[in-house]
């Protein structure tokens, strides 16, 4: 399959992906992404008695006419954030342990898109790390969608840190099975620029369970790594130890940088991590 053809087939699947993401986003039922304090914005926040120094034009005469005092409308402060998304495009994300489950990459893309839809709806600027500049506007989700279609050929993905915007938010979606050093560097670099973010680790249940036995040759998705065993079941306990160790390491890394971490399995509902990620972005 040529690269062009692959891109086309992927692109054909994208509107469905977007639709699913929109559906997911709609089910969250959130209002506008307000700051919950007075400031510049379009939405009404509260009336307060006029004080000295308020411009006469800011007095809301309709409200003031109902009482003796003068009132001024305060509006909610709405500051647009910049959110940078990183969806791991590597081959390891194309893995699915069972034909009934979508690959991890699909889940990551859906979550990212849904998040993008929600954020764009809230007026934030959203961009894909490695893609174009973060922009606001609901139509921008199409650009993000198109940018996501590109697949990387390497086995494990490495986040890029150079395109971060200062004082924004970052969202990393990956299985984080590759080497952790580039991630740590990227996070350190982000922290330097005042960026904080969230790390969403997406794993297939079979990676969590290791339900294999007998004589097996394990190969990485792109085939760069290989391990042969005579009795896969025998490896299970040690594999699980290593997996737990890696998760702990990731968590510890996030904590030290002030990032938030969560783990998501592809057999669970995408609502849970989406909700978590949205709240995390809102609070962060």
């Amino acid at each position: 399959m040529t690269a062009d053809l692959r891109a086309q087939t992927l692109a054909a699947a994208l509107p469905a992906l977007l639709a699913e993401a929109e559906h997911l986003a709609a089910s969250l039922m959130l209002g506008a992404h307000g700051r919950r304090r007075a400031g510049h914005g379009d939405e009404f926040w509260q009336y307060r008695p006029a004080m000295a120094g308020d411009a006469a034009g800011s007095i809301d005469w309709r409200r003031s006419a109902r009482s003796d005092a003068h009132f001024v409308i305060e509006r909610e402060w709405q500051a647009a954030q910049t959110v940078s998304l990183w969806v791991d495009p590597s081959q390891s994300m194309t893995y699915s342990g069972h034909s009934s489950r979508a690959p991890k990459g699909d889940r990551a893309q859906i979550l990212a898109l849904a998040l993008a839809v929600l954020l764009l709806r809230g007026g934030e600027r959203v961009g894909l790390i490695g893609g174009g500049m973060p922009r606001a506007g609901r139509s921008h989700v199409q650009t993000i969608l198109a940018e996501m279609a590109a697949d990387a050929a390497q086995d494990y993905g490495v986040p890029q840190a150079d395109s971060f915007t200062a004082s924004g938010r970052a969202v990393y979606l990956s299985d984080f099975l590759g080497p952790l050093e580039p991630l740590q560097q990227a996070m350190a670099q982000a922290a330097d620029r005042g960026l904080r973010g969230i790390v969403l680790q997406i794993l297939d249940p079979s990676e969590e369970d290791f339900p294999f036995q007998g004589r097996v040759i394990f190969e990485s998705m792109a085939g760069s790594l290989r391990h042969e065993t005579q009795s896969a079941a025998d490896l299970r306990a040690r594999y699980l130890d290593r997996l737990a160790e890696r998760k702990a390491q990731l968590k510890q890394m996030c904590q030290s940088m002030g990032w938030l971490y969560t783990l998501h399995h592809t057999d669970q509902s995408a609502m849970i991590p989406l909700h978590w990620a949205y709240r995390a972005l809102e609070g962060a």
Partner: protein
Amino acid sequence: MNGLAFLSPALLWGLVALPALWLILRAIPPAPLRRRFPAVVLLLGLADRDHSADRTPWWLLMLRALAIAAVIVGFAGPVLNPVASARLSAPLLVVMDAGWADARDWPTAQRTALDAVAEAGRMGQPVAVIRLTDAPSTPVFQSAEAWAGQVAAMVPSALNPADFAAWAAVLPQTGFDSLWIADGLDHPDRTLLLTALQAMGRVEVVQSTEPLFALRPAGLKDGDIKITVARPTAAAPAEVVVIARGPDPSGIPRDLARLPVPFDAGATESSATLSLPPELRNRITQFSILGQTSAGAVHLTDDSLKRRKVAIVSGASDAEALQLLSPTHYLMQAVAPIADMINGDLTDILVAKPDVIILADVAKLTESDALLEWVDQGGLLIRFAGPRMAASDLANDPMLPVPLRAGGKIAGGAMSWGDPKSLAPFGDTSPFAGLTIADDVTVSEQVLAEPGPDLSSATLAALSDGTPLVTRRAVGAGQIVLFHVTANAEWSNLPLSGLFVQMLERLTLSSGTSSNESLAGIWTADKILSGFGAVQDGTAQAGVTGADVAAALATGPNRALPAGIYAQETRRVAVNVIGPDTKIAPMVWPNGTNLRSTDAPRAQNLMGPFLAAALLFLAVDILAALWVSGRLSALVLIAACVLFAPEVKADDQMAIRATAGVVLAYVLTGDAKVDEIAKAGLIGLGERLTARTSIEPDAPMGINLETDELAFFPFLYWPITADAPLPSAAVFAKLNRFLRTGGMIMFDTRDGDFGGTTPEQQALQRIASGLDIPPLEPVPPDHVLTRSFYLINDFPGRATGGTTWVEVSTGAEIAADTPMPFRSQNDGVTPVIIGGNDWAAAWAVDDQGVPMFPVGRGRAGEDQREYAYRFGINVIMHVLTGNYKSDQVHVPALLDRLGK
């Protein structure tokens, strides 16, 4: 002879190689599985702790070794119970008795013959197979292949093997060996053929050891049926069960009675008596021994078992007359031994439904209509003349076969010139044909028939001068016969003669005799008995003469006259294989005969089973190898379990589906097209019901009457096909229960009209004959069907105008005492709707909800479809709500009363 032998034992040396194979297989580990796995990065560097898993497990090795061993042993050609028989060196003649006694164990006999033919084929010798029940002809030796198919198609005849001498004469005079598959019974002249065969070569006789029972003719003894069962050998005590079969009132053959007949040890014959009421007894058509599939275990009954009910009514009050002058004395004497007598006046007699009514000199019939109806339904009315009849004007009496002149004729009296007349010989077509007329039978006085064109054809017997003496006229299914003389000796001495009794016998008072005379004329086969004792239609057989029938009755059936029921007009004679005196004795073969029985262990080639076992082992090995290497997913296992798991709970699922909501059901006819239309029709009707009414039926279900429970369904649509099979008795019982407990069946002959003439309607008549269907009437204009939801006055389907029938509604025309179980039980819902308007086709919609079939033409056609739907909705409403809408019939009357 028992044991195991090998055709090529040298191959067994191959088993020596098994240990080496074991070692080789053990050294090769199972192939690894390649698996893509992103988290392999976490596995890098993990070493296996245990290396033993790379060996093939010992049980898998054992499985493979067994498979190889089975292959080696299988190809070595193991044979169980090898036959150490001398090799055939000459052509082989297979002689089969193939009579009724062979039928009890025919598969064995056939298999023995096939084995022998196959063996001869292997030896390259030609074969001939003869059946001793066939007409003797020189056997033709052919290749074994040519015979194998013929032998497999051979069936035994319902005859005794015979003509042994003739067979011995036609044997080819070249040397051959023989295999005689005998039935074990002693038949005359059997040793003749044995000697002839032995002269040609070696003879081996094979006999079945299956117990053999034969049923002798059933006889009447003191009103009970005496049944005798015979067996050839006086072996241990045994008990056989004799079944009496016959049609039930709806015409379906049933077991009417069962009679155990015990055999004492040492007894070769045993009898038991069966006491049945005359109604049941007269219905018996055959006796058979349970579990014996041979013509000898079946006894077909004819008229001889029947005792007809005969009523004799006299016109004269004979209280003070002398007994010998009584008009009915001779009749009573003639009839009493052969029939049951009914006394009483005509009105009482008709209620008892006698077979025959004899009126002795009754001129004026008061119950003429009822009597005529009884004759019309098959009764036989025999009238005798007398002074009263002669004195009456009977020119237009419908109850006489010919118009009579007033007065009579006296010949040979004191005042007349002529002599008493004697009888002319009976014509060939007369039922009396063949009866010998005694010279001294004379007639001196008689009533005279009005001459007419029909007179000669109506005349059964005439005097020597041609004057009719007995005349007959058919009325409906019955007939009226007039003897132009008195029933006593007043006018003629006929009643004093034996001829009188014979004539009455011929008139089906009783045909219990089998004398040559009484059987004269041509008889046609009605039913034919197969060798296995099955009754088949015999109407294709040529007619036979009475003399032949009499001979067959005396000596048993033969090739030209096979066992069965022979009919002449209304008379029936059964020719059975076993007569009262047929000898049933075991064959005692001469000393030195090479005799064996069929149940000796047969040589069995075990090559096939061994190779099959090897294949099975290999198949298991595939699964096991997959499982060991982890390739066998749980899915495959589940699929295998599902494949082999017995289907259970299907009934429960059907019941749950049927009871989850209102489900309209249709009867699966077996015609896929009709079934599809019925289903689509009920779907279409269901959609309309859901849209317009509060009835929201679920998807309709097809019902297999044999297997499915009906109780869940309120409504059954039954499209009738021309080739609809007759349901079994159990199904009829189920359907009747369904109708009785409130179900409705809508019969649709789909032919647009309901006149009883199309094949579908005849099929419906066949089916309906077994159902408890109440009296029917065309839907009256005020029937609740016309108002249960819509007001309609026509019931169109795809066809229109055909009459639709429902149960007769409560009205003045039904007498109060008529039993109508449905009305009281079912809330006035008619249990059946019968019509032919092809409703389902009008209702039928396809998947898109578009009507499947055009109805009528244009706009009017769509209206017709609409009315078809309305009728359907009314029907379902009627089924589900009963008669409450019929109360509105009274609304005008109630309003009227209120107004007053």
